[in-house]
């Protein structure tokens, strides 16, 4: 399985490398022959940009035999790298000096950087989640969280009824109810910090010394639920970051496309061969 993955990556990387080398050669050799080489790279870049933007659309055409979503993602990633090479060739490795062209270039660069950041992040997050354990659909997290909270509440109430002591119920109400009710410690989970759960576990250890054996058993079950909830929060934070990252990449992509359309209008209206007086 792993060998196949590396084989596929090597093949795709080699294809990308060949495409970039061919592009460089074409830029070097064809410049004297093709007057509008910049126009050619520009249209090619626009086509690649449209293909990249259409990734979200293509992958959803499940009724057509267009390949799996994973294949489309790979095409998206490698096309993205190629678009960067095309962009450099189109600009001839020169940052434009005009205001509008500078804006367009900035958008493209930010889109590319956000894409690269997203690619790296999407590779990192699954590893982190696997290392932490558990497998949760993002959309199911609120339901699971509610279930955990209900269980904890029942456990605390049952302990009160069974032992006649309200210690566990008070502990639940004071320290656990709020924790279990909603997602907690988003930023700490994003960076992989375990300080909040360790602090809660210390409270469990403190309380454990004052309980009898039956209460200790209930406390251990509560602690287990809290640790599960902490893992759920970790999943929520990591998966949320993958969802929220798109709030940067997609608007930048569409902004780049919008500016590109105006760029085409300006190029053909003003530069390429505008009509005579």
């Amino acid at each position, binding site marked *: 399985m792993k060998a196949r993955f590396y084989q596929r990556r090597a093949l795709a990387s080699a294809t990308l490398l060949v495409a970039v080398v061919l592009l460089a050669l074409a830029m070097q050799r064809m410049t004297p022959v093709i007057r509008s080489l910049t126009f050619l790279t520009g249209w090619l870049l626009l086509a690649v940009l449209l293909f990249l933007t259409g990734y979200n659309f293509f992958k959803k055409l499940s009724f057509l035999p267009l390949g799996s979503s994973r294949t489309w993602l790979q095409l998206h990633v490698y096309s993205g790298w190629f678009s960067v090479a095309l962009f450099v060739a189109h600009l001839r490795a020169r940052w434009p000096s005009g205001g*509008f062209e500078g804006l367009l270039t900035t958008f493209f660069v930010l889109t590319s950087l956000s894409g690269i950041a997203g690619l790296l992040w999407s590779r990192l997050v699954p590893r982190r989640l696997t290392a932490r354990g558990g497998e949760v659909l993002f959309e199911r997290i609120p339901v699971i969280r509610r279930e955990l909270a209900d269980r904890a509440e029942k456990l605390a109430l049952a302990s009160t009824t069974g032992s006649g002591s309200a210690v566990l119920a008070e502990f639940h109400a004071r320290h656990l109810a709020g924790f279990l009710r909603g997602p907690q410690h988003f930023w700490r989970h994003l960076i992989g910090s375990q300080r909040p759960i360790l602090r809660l576990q210390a409270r469990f250890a403190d309380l454990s010394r004052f309980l009898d054996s039956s209460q200790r058993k209930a406390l251990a079950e509560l602690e287990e639920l809290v640790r*599960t909830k902490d893992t759920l929060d970790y999943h929520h934070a990591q998966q949320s970051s993958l969802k929220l990252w798109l709030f940067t990449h997609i608007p930048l992509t569409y902004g780049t496309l919008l500016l590109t359309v105006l760029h085409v209008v300006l190029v053909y209206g003003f530069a390429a061969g505008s009509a005579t*007086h």
Partner: protein
Amino acid sequence: MPGQLPAPDFDASRYERPNDAWICGHHCVGKPCPLGPSPNGQCRTNAECKPLLESKPGETKGRWRCTRPREQGGPCEDGPQPDGSCGHPVIPCAPRPSLRRLRGRFTWGICALLAGLVLLASGSRWRWHFINPGPLTSAHSSLGFSPRTHSPSPNANSCAACHEAAAGEIGHWVKSALGANPAPWDLQQFAPVVGGPHPMTGIDLHCTACHPHHERHQPSVADEASCSSCHQEHRGTQFAAPSDDRCADCHDQPAVMAAASIRGHGLPSAQFDPPAPPGVRSHLTPRPQGGRTNLFAEFWKGHPEFGVLRQKSTDATALRFNHAVHLGESVRIDGRMLACSDCHVADPSGASMARVQFKPHCQVCHGLQLDPAHPELTVPHGDTAAARAAVRSLPLAYAELARRKGLHSRVEVDHFAQTNLARLRVMFGSGETLERLVLRTAEARPGTGGLAGERRAHFAGCAYCHVVSESDQISPVTPPDRWLPAAHFNHARHAQLDCQHCHAAHTSRQTSDVLLPSQQVCVSCHQPAGGAPAGCATCHSYHLLKPPR
């Protein structure tokens, strides 16, 4: 290890719809309804189930049965209300947009904001600065440019001189883009151009409104070539030099050169002569038969020999000068041999050599003394009439010299003058003979011209160096300042080379010798292997000629 996530008894049968635009308002508290909101975001659940009316055969009323699904707890104990409504009503929720819908809204918001900003910038007074892709060349951004442009309206900015689209607003830009030549969808624009110059485009026609045709290059240019293929505007205050490929589009194309040769046939040669800058004398080589239509692609590959050498032109300067003698052992100044730089000095720019002048460069050796015994007496330079007058007024000159030497009495002055005049008569004969010697004799007299033991060469007479006519007129000395007027050369950039590397002055004995290096001498450095720039624009400018009036 934390507990299993999700718990083993978690009901995973629920179907998630992450691509829906709306999610149940109870989802965030973990109690979403199974049905979920409608596609337009309306809550459509008001009870836990929709009771089903069941009736047995023969019954008229029937019974309502609870249909709550198993995952929701199954049929309730209380059952439906008598009127058939569910006994467990659900509080309606306010559905919330899904993350996907929020992202879509955010994206469109950003796009709308961006479009608004761009439209605002495009409609503002700064729109030309905003869309300007880069600084214009100084000629096209000068204050004098706008009035000379053919702007379509008095209020039009100078952009409209070249860009028709600039005469209108953004809608007009779109119209111009769609009407561009070539149009955006015209695949011909990507076709390789082989066998000739790049064809004219719409924008090029604006160039020719002020710069008609290609007559500034050569009147024989047969095909109009695209101006913008060489000149990239909005790339800085100066046009960058075009690449050699653009030159080779014509100069390496047999058909193009043949057409130019035919077109140039019969045109006056003077039309092809590049003008010299004010005050500069150029050597003009006769235009060869068929014009300058040799085929070549690079300077080091096929560039013809310089015309002045190819046609074996001679230096017609009316001066008798021997470079070999002056650079030889016999001529010394302050004990050392002469160097080129003793006479040839660069002009202030350093690019060209200043003219050699008599007083600073020649007179230090070639004094104009008439009488070896009295070197103070000199003949004026540059005017034969003045020289003749000086010879004829020698008695007065000796008398003046006597006074300068401290002889004040008339007798002493007269004696001094007469004695020296008599000595001159012995040396040269009569006054007429002396006058002829001064003006007309080209041969050196004994003791003239030699520097052995003396610093100065004695005056041999005007004709020793100059061409003096029968009417005693000296032919003007007008050596060319530029031997290759169609090219430019910078001496300062070649300062690291010895002069003799390029100029064979040590072997030149005649004024008529043209001491230019051959093209091959230049190629020894100006080629890729030589390291020096070898592009066409290194020496040539496309616009050789004056614009036609």
